[in-house]
């Protein structure tokens, strides 16, 4: 079979997902306010400025992970309605390229979300960041969201089109993203200097985030095809 080059499939799927988002504005109009609301609710629950400043890093990443579920489910709901995913399979294209395209689209949406969440942390929780901390923070956001993009797409594809996916996805994804939550939280805390953490402590955690992204990037590319191809 004459196959379309992988890079073209990746960019086509990526553009498609981002275009759907640009037109429907679900992430901007619904997921962003939802994540912002979580940040405000945390402030109500913890009710202490010092505590909020100390745990800001963890709250940002918890809000990101909760939003991840919503975005992943929506992304695959679009793909499975009208059998769009089946049409992609019929087209005979490389499914690992579809995986990469969707994962990159998801990562970009998560990065946009995190920019807003970190801004919210500055406004609501009074965190501070140095120049060196900012470099760490940006790297951490890129590495963590890449990892989340890969696992989100992989497990989203697994549960796509099955009954009970709304409840199953968090059950499957939460244990898997635990390392991202731990590592990204520690790196972000190091960037903010929460609890007297030094910026340099954060880089080891970024290393862990990179390993995570690499493992699930490779694992996902291999597993996505067999999972969808049924």
């Amino acid at each position, binding site marked *: 079979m004459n196959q379309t080059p992988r890079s073209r499939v990746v960019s086509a799927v990526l553009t498609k997902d981002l275009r759907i988002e640009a037109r429907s504005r679900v992430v901007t109009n619904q997921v962003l306010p939802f994540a912002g609301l979580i940040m405000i609710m945390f402030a109500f629950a913890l009710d202490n400025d010092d505590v909020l400043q100390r745990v800001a890093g963890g709250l940002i990443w918890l809000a990101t992970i909760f939003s991840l579920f919503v975005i992943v489910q929506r992304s695959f709901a679009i793909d499975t309605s009208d059998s769009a995913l089946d049409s992609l399979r019929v087209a005979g294209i490389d499914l690992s390229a579809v995986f990469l395209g969707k994962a990159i689209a998801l990562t970009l949406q998560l990065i946009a979300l995190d920019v807003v969440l970190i801004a919210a942390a500055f406004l609501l929780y009074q965190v501070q960041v140095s120049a060196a901390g900012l470099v760490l923070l940006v790297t951490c956001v890129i590495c963590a969201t890449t990892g989340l993009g890969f696992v989100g797409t*992989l497990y989203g594809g*697994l*549960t796509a089109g*099955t*009954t*009970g996916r709304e409840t*199953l996805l968090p*059950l*499957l994804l*939460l*244990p*898997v993203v*635990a*390392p991202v939550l*731990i*590592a990204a939280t*520690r790196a972000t805390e190091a960037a903010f200097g929460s609890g007297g953490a030094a910026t340099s*402590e954060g880089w*080891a*955690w970024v290393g*862990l985030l990179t*390993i*995570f992204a690499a*493992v*699930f990037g490779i*694992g996902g590319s291999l*597993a996505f095809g*067999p*999972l969808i191809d*049924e």
Partner: protein
Amino acid sequence: MKASQVNTGVSLKMSQSSQKFSSTGTQATRVIGVLAIVVMAWVVISGLVFTPADVVQGESVRIMYVHVPSAWIAYLAFIVTAIASSFYIFAKRHSLGFDRVAGASAEVGVMFMAITLITGSLWGRLTWGEFWQWDPRLTTTAFLFVTYIGYLAVRRLDGSIEQRARRSGVIALLAVLEIPLVHFSVVFWRSLHQRATILDPNGDVKMDGLMLFTLFSGVVAFTLVFAWLVLHRQRTMLLSDLSNERGLDNAILARQSENASN
């Protein structure tokens, strides 16, 4: 009326297994079952009566005779699941037998993991004064437990038996990637935020000969129970898969012929 008489016209595999419908036991599982009962009885008596109480931990040390073997079985079960799943996925002929062994082993593993966590936290309450410590090993075990609950949920998703096998096989292999990452990140996390523990669970514990033998017997007994449960469970899975494949039509046919013969 015997089941084998109803099954005329069904596949050979079907009628062969239907002759064993009365039981999922075989000669081998009966031997394993009897051995398991005998060794387990010895462990109960020795663990509760013959072995002495520990100098430091007192009577609570007896929890160990259940806790350590069940933890061993829990991890063994998940290794079996991973190996069986990789056989299913990577072998040329995707044999559903491997999928059933993987599923049966995971079910039994989840049960032993629950026993491990419960007995462990009871022991922790007696020894540390707390039910839970954020020790890397404990935390990883808890994550393994939740991961395999997710695995069992995936097995119950709707779809064909082949879909079930493929999905759950991939999940089992992903868990093999995930667990080391979780363990490593928790170790790393704890190394920076270590609290003093009353008794180090990894500490060097000197053990009396009979205690060690009882513990070893416990491992043997639990392994036999595990083998027995997995063998039976994968056979009941085979039967339920077959009955699903056979469908409603055959069930109605069977009922009709039963009525006709009466």
